[in-house]
């Protein structure tokens, strides 16, 4: 199975700023997924990122707030834009059934 390197592992950010989360996969994959998770709770899919096309966003998530890049088949980024305390959460990328270790974001 794929190995995913996700960073940063955690960050504390000021409201109104943006944070970009990176995921690097050790093999080429077509689809990557971005999730949000409150600690101890289930996962909510933000968007599906395909290489060479725009990401597909789930209901409640928009590109202006969560822009995604997918420049090649091994890399993707998720940006959390104009952050507010409500964006404090864990953000995870996945490939198939394999997940990155997550980014714990706290917005103050």
């Amino acid at each position, binding site marked *: 199975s794929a190995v995913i390197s996700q960073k940063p592992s955690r960050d504390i950010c000021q409201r109104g700023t943006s944070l970009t989360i990176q995921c690097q996969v050790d093999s080429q994959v077509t*689809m990557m997924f971005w999730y949000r998770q409150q600690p101890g*709770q*289930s996962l*909510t*899919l933000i968007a*599906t990122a395909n290489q060479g096309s725009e990401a597909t966003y789930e209901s409640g998530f928009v590109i202006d707030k969560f822009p995604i890049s997918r420049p090649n088949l091994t890399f993707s980024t998720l940006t959390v834009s104009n952050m507010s305390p409500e964006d404090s959460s864990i953000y995870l990328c996945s490939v198939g059934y394999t*997940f*990155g270790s*997550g980014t714990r974001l706290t917005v103050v």
Partner: protein
Amino acid sequence: TQLLEQSPQFLSIQEGENLTVYCNSSSVFSSLQWYRQEPGEGPVLLVTVVTGGEVKKLKRLTFQFGDARKDSSLHITAAQPGDTGLYLCAGGGNNRKLIWGLGTSLAVNP
């Protein structure tokens, strides 16, 4: 809309006890996965079940997929403190977008 109902949401037991976690749906899934997640880490896949009636064992963990592929269970025998974590079930769709249960937070007390 496909939904997965997972229960119980919280479980606190003593070391050595047995427990069962359930995932139920009114929809048929092509496959169902069970994950375990520890704090500060992403979910780690424990097992995938794909055949109705399938039973898989992973040491003290037994996974079962219902005959109609609408439900699944995870049974842990003689739980240990190392089993503590968040257990998640997820149903696989044909487009690989997973449908997630709400999770079961398990605490095994020594």
